[in-house]
């Protein structure tokens, strides 16, 4: 960028006013599309200058220029128009769609992007427009209900909560189903559970997904597993979420400022006792300020987005503050060399209340599971005492998290010729988190865990986690056409290396009033390290036939340092075919084209992997400090044959578009088998050894994915679109390698279990079954249902009327089961026996009739309803003022009278398997009423 551009940007940003250089003529006009509809946001620039503007919402523009100069009109998806300035002061332009540019390009795999029509796999895409509408500032919450085939369940209403993200069913018993997340080609920390070391919060934790900056995203691609992720290697079997940040566009510099104000209200729908809300809920406020500016001149462009966010939550404890910015930059370094860079920072501070497992410490769970008695039956005086106790504890709860994260990406593209291009990417992600918990003496006295008057038993815990990932990729893309054949060849190599260092510092025997471990009588330290390097070579050949059919062949030779010493690199092949029947000229000329405008058939096979936790292949010993003396013991037994588990997916799909693609249907059948599945069976106790992860299992997932989107109304002023998806998943553990069933979550009396012939993580427990004679028989180890809802999908609506937009998103699931653990505890404490037969209640242990605590996990939830209005350029200097209103989580329908999403305490291990089969002890997502005002310069 030359110096004058710097000044231009600065002046744009500071003054927010349009600076124009002296020109002697004002030109006006309207830009329309090929249907005559006005096109807002078209870049209009005087060629050879940095003088430019954008059309407003009615397609109108004004610009200063001289006779003889040329105006350039550019807009994504439209052919660029150049128009010399003549005598007239009015230049109206009708732009024409650029068919080639409109062909969506997917960044999938590695190498240069490939046009979507050439791909045999499907990718769910969120565009800038979709993203800007969504009120959330957490990426998983944004994707929830806005991607057709992903199931995303946020497990608590607390800040930054972990989520369960799944697409094609649970493929692994060893790892979380969270996809790999790649920001501008760089892998980022995607820890979506408690870390390995952790402070006891009863399952409350902050996910690394909560601090990926979202204010400058141009596009999110959700690539499901199978052939689509083969080239990513390593742990991409759960899919990949690609985030592409904005880098700005050549044209007039623009800027915006947005202010949002929200009201956050606790969701009381599922509370067993209304008094719980009285004690804990307190409607809060959220505030956010966002700024952004972007633009570009000849050979460069830039984008900056920044945000400051604060909320004090729906309860009287949680607070969060988030500060983030992203800077993206694109430059033409030479005729052949291009550069793209991005850099982002997030600072995130929040505090957490205790969740389920600490019933004495978790007030919410204490109330809801009747740990404080039946709240409805307490007298006013008793309740008053409870309220006072709760209010006494409230300011003393001290679980804080501070996260700082930076992500940087650099991509160089060298264009040897029109046919050959090289791409090199290198980038890093560094996320450091400090979690701190202080259980002061006064806190412990207030919760009743130590006697009144104790002053020297304060506890401090601090967990430091540093996660660093470096990613590098070099690839070559060659494109060629030979008569009716086209060839895209990609050859590349990639590596990423991640290091996760955790240190936990504990202090006990302290007095109140300090946050330094130095001031505690005893201090202990724990550490934990994970280090992994993954590297591979990959190739892809996409052969086109007559520009309608394409054959993809590819593979990756993959190696990672978490494999045992007896193993070899894995070769992961993929093959795919796609046939765009409707692209044949004969078809386009045929009358049926008006009715069925798109027919695309696709099929593919591909393999993708997940690797075991680093170092789990090694035989190790440990030395523990035991009363001040060193003591040895066996640690990990080791497995020199350990390799990544391999998911083999076959997929068939059909895409249909009707009536000029106003109605689009997509259907996919997938069949995925996880071979050499990583199971950690319980070792025979006679071994005396810890459990060792082994490649002994096999898991099958089969299902259908259907998506429909339709434009029901499209007139000059109105547009009404809807979308709907329906997905099925059939999951079974084909083989557990001869081992006994093992519990991967939950409890002894009712566990989430891996067992041959059953769904992964199904619910198992003792069922009381009514016999013909009216008595009950107790059947231990009964199948109480699958934790994964096998039927799910999303719904959406989008209506535009001129400058007004209304949209809604929602999602649903049915067919699965979930345990209401709060109810179980209430029953155990003899405060709630609703629906439990008299013959059982009180006459036997509740653990003999756990089936009565298991319910359908069906729900339909409307996640967001939003409306916005663009006032246009009514107030100078703003080119537009947008007012937006959104309501988050306004309506819920569930099968049971608890929230089946609240699985706050479900994930036991770092990135471990999460079944989500237990609802327990944490608040639901709150309702948020958010208003925003956005000033566009």
């Amino acid at each position: 960028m030359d110096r004058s551009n710097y000044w231009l940007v600065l002046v744009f940003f500071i003054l927010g006013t349009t600076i124009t250089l002296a020109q002697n003529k004002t030109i006006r006009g309207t830009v329309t599309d090929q249907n005559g509809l006005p096109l807002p946001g078209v870049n209009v620039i005087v060629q050879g200058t940095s003088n430019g503007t954008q059309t407003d919402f009615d397609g109108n523009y004004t610009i200063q220029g001289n006779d003889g100069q040329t105006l350039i009109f550019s807009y994504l998806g439209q052919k660029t128009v150049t128009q010399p300035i003549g005598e007239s002061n009015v230049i109206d332009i009708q732009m024409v769609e650029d068919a080639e540019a409109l062909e969506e390009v997917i960044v999938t795999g590695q190498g240069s992007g490939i046009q979507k029509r050439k791909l045999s796999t499907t990718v769910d895409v969120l565009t800038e427009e979709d993203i800007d509408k969504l009120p959330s500032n957490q990426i998983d919450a944004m994707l929830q209900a806005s991607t057709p085939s992903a199931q995303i369940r946020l497990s608590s209403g607390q800040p930054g909560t972990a989520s369960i993200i799944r697409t094609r069913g649970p493929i692994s018993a060893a790892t979380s189903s969270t996809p790999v997340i790649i920001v501008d080609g760089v892998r980022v920390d995607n820890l979506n559970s408690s870390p390995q070391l952790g402070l006891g919060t009863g399952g409350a934790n902050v996910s690394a997904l909560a601090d990926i900056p979202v204010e400058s995203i141009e596009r999110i691609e959700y690539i499901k597993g199978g052939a689509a992720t083969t080239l990513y290697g390593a742990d991409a079997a759960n899919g990949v979420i690609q985030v592409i940040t904005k880098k700005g566009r050549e044209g007039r510099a623009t800027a915006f400022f947005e202010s949002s104000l929200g009201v956050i209200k606790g969701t009381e729908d599922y509370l067993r006792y209304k008094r719980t809300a009285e004690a804990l809920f307190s409607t809060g406020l959220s505030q956010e300020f966002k700024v952004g500016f972007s633009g570009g001149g000849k050979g460069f462009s830039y984008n900056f987005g920044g945000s400051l966010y604060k909320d004090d939550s729906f309860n009287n404890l949680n607070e969060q503050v988030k500060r983030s910015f992203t800077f993206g930059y694109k430059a033409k370094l030479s005729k052949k060399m291009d550069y793209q860079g991005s850099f982002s920072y997030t600072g995130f501070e929040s505090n957490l209340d205790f969740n389920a497992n600490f019933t004495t410490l978790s007030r919410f769970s204490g109330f809801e599971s009747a740990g404080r008695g039946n709240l409805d039956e307490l007298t006013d005086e008793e309740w008053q005492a409870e309220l006072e106790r709760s209010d006494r504890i409230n300011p003393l709860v001290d679980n804080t998290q501070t996260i700082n994260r930076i992500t940087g990406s650099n991509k160089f593209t060298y264009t040897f010729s029109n046919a050959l291009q090289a791409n090199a990417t290198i980038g890093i992600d560094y996320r450091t988190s400090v979690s701190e918990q202080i259980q002061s003496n006064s806190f412990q006295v207030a919760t009743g865990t130590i006697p009144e008057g104790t002053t020297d038993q304060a506890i401090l815990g601090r967990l430091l986690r540093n996660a660093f990932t470096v990613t590098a990729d070099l690839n070559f893309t060659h494109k060629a056409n030979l008569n009716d054949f086209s060839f895209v060849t990609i050859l590349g190599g990639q590596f990423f290396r991640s290091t996760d260092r955790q240190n936990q510092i504990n202090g006990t025997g302290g007095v109140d009033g300090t946050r330094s471990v130095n001031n505690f009588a005893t201090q202990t330290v724990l550490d934990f390290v994970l280090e992994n390097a993954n590297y591979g070579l990959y190739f892809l050949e996409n052969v086109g036939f007559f520009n309608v059919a394409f054959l993809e062949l590819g593979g990756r030779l993959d190696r990672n340092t978490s494999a045992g010493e007896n193993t070899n690199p894995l070769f992961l092949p993929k093959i795919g075919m796609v046939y765009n029947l409707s692209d044949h000229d004969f078809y386009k000329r045929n009358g049926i084209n008006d009715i069925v405008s798109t027919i695309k058939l696709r099929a593919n096979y591909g393999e993708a992997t997940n690797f075991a936790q680093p170092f789990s292949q090694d035989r190790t010993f440990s030395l523990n400090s035991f009363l001040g003396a060193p003591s040895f013991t066996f640690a990990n037994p080791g497995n020199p044959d350990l390799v990544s588990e391999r998911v083999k997916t076959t997929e068939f799909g059909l895409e249909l578009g009707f009536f000029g693609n106003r109605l689009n249907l997509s259907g996919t059948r997938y069949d995925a088998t996880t071979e050499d599945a990583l199971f950690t069976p319980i070792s025979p106790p006679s071994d005396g050894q810890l459990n060792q992860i082994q490649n002994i299992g096999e898991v099958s997932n089969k299902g259908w994915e259907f998506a429909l989107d339709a434009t029901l109304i499209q007139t000059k002023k109105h547009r009404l679109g809807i979308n709907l998806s329906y997905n099925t998943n059939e999951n079974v553990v084909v083989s557990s390698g001869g081992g006994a069933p093992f519990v991967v979550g939950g409890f002894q009396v009712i566990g989430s279990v891996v067992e041959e012939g059953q769904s992964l993580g199904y619910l198992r427990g003792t069922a009381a079954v009514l016999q013909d004679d009216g008595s009950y028989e107790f059947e231990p180890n009964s199948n109480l249902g699958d934790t994964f809802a096998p039927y799910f999908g999303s719904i959406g609506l989008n209506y535009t009327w001129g400058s007004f937009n209304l949209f809604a998103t929602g999602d649903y699931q049915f067919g699965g089961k979930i345990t209401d653990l709060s109810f179980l505890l209430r029953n155990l404490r003899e405060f709630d026996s609703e629906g439990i037969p008299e013959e059982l209640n009180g006459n036997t242990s509740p653990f003999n009739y756990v089936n009565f605590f298991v319910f359908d996990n069906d729900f339909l939830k409307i996640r967001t309803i939003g409306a916005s209005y663009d006032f246009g350029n009514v107030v100078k200097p703003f080119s537009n003022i947008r007012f937006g209103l959104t309501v988050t989580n306004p309506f819920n329908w569930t099968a049971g009278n608890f929230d089946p999403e609240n699985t706050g305490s479900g994930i036991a291990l770092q990135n471990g398997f999460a079944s989500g089969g237990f609802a327990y002890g944490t608040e639901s997502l709150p309702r948020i009423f958010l208003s925003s005002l956005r000033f566009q310069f």
Partner: protein
Amino acid sequence: MNKIIIVFSILFLAISCTDDFSNVVDFTEVENPNLSEESVIGQPNSSVIWLTGLERQLSLAINNTLVLAELGSDNYVNTQTFFSQFMDELDIQITDPNIRNAGFTIQRLREMAVFGLTEVGPADPEYVATTEAEYHFFYGISLLYSAMYFSALPQEPVGIPVSSAQNYRDAIAAFDLAIGINPLPEYHLAKARANYYLGNKADAVAAAQQALALDGSFDRFATFDQANGPTNTMEAALFARGTFDDLQPLPTLDFLDPKYSFLTPLEDPPVHYLKAEEAHLILAEANISDGNIATAQDNLRDLLDVIATREVRSIDDSIEGRTENAPGSRPNNANVAVNFRGLGLVLDRQAGNVDIPAVSGTSLTEFDVDMMVAGDNAVELLYRTRQEVFIAEGIRFVDMGIKLVIDENEILQNDNISMGDPGTVPVIPPFIASVVTDLDAITYDAAAGVATTVVDVTQILVGNKESDLVLPFH
């Protein structure tokens, strides 16, 4: 000039390339920070560190057996779900992970002892005889615990299950090896206990006498690390979890609870697993069974003398309400009489500190001993004393003749075991099975200050003393 620059540049690059620069760009190198086998075997003093590991493993094994054994016996009732969800009802299942952990930790102790004897010890230049004796002792202890709590358990990885009796016999062999190297009183007592449960009265008596001859008040205990773990699980159940009131004692044993309470931020209270009292009790029981009441009385007087020397801790137990979940449901003050035995068995924990024996306590008095006459009453008195002295030490459960089962994972992965084999089926004597639901049941009239246990397990045991499953000397 240009030539000079070029030559200089080439020279500079050549020199800088000679340095080993590969590790700067090698991204595949990862280092497991944990200990490998080479860091353990063959290192000087590794045998001592391994021995501390065995001590620690025993503490883990005790943690995993004690709570189960105490819940399974009449000593304690479980008011929560944290420690076990089955054992209070003697619902012994092959799928219960708590039972698996008990079996696992005991067998891990054995594997560690074997590894010490075969690998770590011989490779350590500093290996000494006393360490070797301890390795044998711990091997014996793992077999002793196998025999006490399981009707059968393998003695090697996925090995053939060995009966309880054979495990006792092999434990004795191991203790003999330890005694051969370094005779310690606890080695003799461990041997005495194995012989006691085998019913080998003469051998048990001989071993008990040898133990006492070496030291009349010895006490071998397992230690617990409050800071680094393992902490004492039983202490958590009885005391540390405060208002949870997880395990509640039978009112007749109230004055002995909690045997374990907060010690220091560094150390949790120890479990006294082999103490002189047991030798006196074995001798007394042998004499009672032989009709030597006077000698038995002497043994019991010796017992009281030892108990009198043991630590009694004054503790603030006010946080433990006895009645947190169901107010008024359990005796909680000194005005309650239990089983018509007068006052003193139940303490008032809200009236200042209470004095609780930390090693051994009993309601047995000199007067009781003086009044003792031959017959079942003497056996009952002895068994009541055993229950009191060994509370929270896992012995009552063994005295009741109950045995746990081999875990499902062993059954499925061990070719030598099939479902239904001995060892896979729980052993509960029929006279215990018939009163399972009443084992720790009480009736309590708070107003009248009268509490009564629904059954008296000591009486039941003595009433069935002819059974092979209990009272081995009778």
